[in-house]
């Protein structure tokens, strides 16, 4: 069985929006990212797929520069500029943002104000528009607080609306379907289409086949590394057939053959 790196034919870098070379990160003595390299195509929808513990979310947090994820080794650059010394807000102002798997709650902060924080167009009309696109009724949600009175799925949609308003160059969405009901999934997919049309590059973090199918290009992640990349169909088939049933998910030490070349 080949669990190793397959160089995808036809997947060539067009423009260096985000370039990651040999990225490694240890947290509490555990190596979570391991010599990972990755390039994204500007204006395309990408997905990183992997089982729990593969390091997908950690990669997104490291790219965004969150406080616990800054001690990385290797190189990361965005639009040709090194991210090494950039704080989260500086990275955001360079044009990237992150949608959390479970968005934070904010007592006393209204949906209206939250959506407008990073918005390029802070008009009420635009706020109403992005809320609708995210599947939320403006009349019902504008005045509400982004607090515990909203469900996780509702906060997820509010966060998506704020990202739509921000129109960033790079959007990383961590498990965008998490907490979202089936009916709303198509809204989320449509919103991602809107972002793409506006020129955003999208990186979806997922283990859902549904979300993976929204992407144009896919990366397979295991044990903190990109193990393969290529078409969504190919990565999807491999993930479903090999990774999901795999007994040694993210534990290569259990299987000496897991070295990127051999079957297991």
């Amino acid at each position: 069985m080949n669990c190793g790196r397959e160089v995808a034919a036809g997947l060539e870098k067009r423009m260096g929006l985000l370039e990651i070379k040999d990225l490694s990160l240890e947290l509490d003595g555990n190596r979570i990212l391991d010599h990972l390299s990755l390039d994204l195509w500007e204006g395309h929808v990408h997905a990183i797929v992997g089982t729990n513990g593969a390091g997908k979310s950690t990669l997104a947090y490291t790219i965004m520069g969150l406080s616990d994820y800054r001690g990385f080794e290797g190189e990361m650059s965005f639009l040709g500029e090194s991210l090494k010394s950039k704080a989260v807000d500086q990275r955001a102002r360079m044009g990237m943002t992150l949608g959390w798997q479970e968005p934070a709650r904010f007592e006393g902060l209204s949906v209206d104000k939250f959506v407008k924080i990073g918005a390029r167009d802070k008009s009420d009309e635009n706020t109403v528009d992005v809320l609708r696109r995210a599947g939320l009724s403006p009349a019902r949600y504008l005045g509400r607080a982004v607090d515990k009175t909203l469900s996780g799925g509702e906060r997820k949609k509010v966060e998506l609306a704020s990202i739509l308003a921000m129109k960033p160059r790079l959007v990383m969405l961590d498990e965008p379907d998490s907490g979202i009901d089936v009916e709303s999934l198509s809204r989320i997919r449509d919103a991602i289409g809107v972002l793409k049309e506006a020129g955003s590059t999208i990186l979806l973090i997922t283990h859902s086949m549904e979300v993976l199918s929204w992407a144009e290009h896919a990366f397979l992640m295991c044990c903190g590394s990109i193990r393969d990349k290529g078409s969504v169909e190919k990565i999807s088939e491999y993930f479903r057939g090999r990774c999901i049933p795999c007994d040694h998910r993210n534990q290569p030490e259990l299987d000496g053959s897991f070295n990127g070349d051999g079957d297991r």
Partner: protein
Amino acid sequence: MATATDSLELIRSAGIHAAAKDPDTAHLVIGLNKVISSRLVPGLEVEPEENEEGVNIHIRVADGARIAKPVHMCFGLLQEAGIQRIGIDLTVEDDAKIGIVAHCIFPSAEQQPGGEPPVKHLMDATIRIGAGSEYTYFERHIHSSKGGVLVAPKARVELADHARFKTDFELVEGRVGKIDIDYETVCGPYSVMEMTAKISARADDVVKIRETGLLSGEHSRGVLTSRVAVRDQARADVYNKLTATAAYARGHVDCQEIIAGGGIANAVPIVEVSHPKAHITHEATLGSVDNKQLETLMARGLDEDAASDLIISGLLA
């Protein structure tokens, strides 16, 4: 000596021009130790007694009276130094309803290093809320940005059966100076009490909150809520105590304090239950601004200080 100009200035600072002109809205404006403007509405009796250091006010809401529009009160001291003692004796008779919106305005005080606050606002209230009656009280403080104010409100509140009492204290504009809140409430059967304090402290401000509630009536309910932001070298001590001694009494104590810089926060939530069918819960959160909240806002482009301020202002909203 308080003047008509003071009255206009206090009304302007409180933003209650419309209410002060409305013949259907009651109001009372007190500058230093003088009543400088007032209006009553049917069902509401107000008898102020001026003295050297302030005003004692007897308020009665007549049996069955439903005061439709909030009564506006304005207490203030426009001078740079002085003391204002307000005594309130309020009786809301049975099946009555009243809401009071109070603005406390001290814009000119300035704290001198090592000295006592030059402006003191001391309030002592005794409040009785009759059976089936409802009393809401919202108090907003507007202070100078230079500290120098001591605010010490003290209240004893008794709720008869099926009475409702809700009070909100807010001091989020200007410097606190020193504040010492002492509220005590006793709840009769089926009564409901909510007490909330929201305070933003900075520099060397000192905040003391002592709120106690006794749920002594069956099916009585009470919530004590405090939200305090402590920045720079400010200090906050919050002491909340809720006691339930009757069957089916329900209560909750909720204290959140955010610290930034060298601020110190101290919270003592005490819950005491002496009846097997009573139930009280409490939660207290003290600490810096939540990292996930902070980084969510920073990921939208706000710098750390702006994100922190937004989170704190939301907490105190």
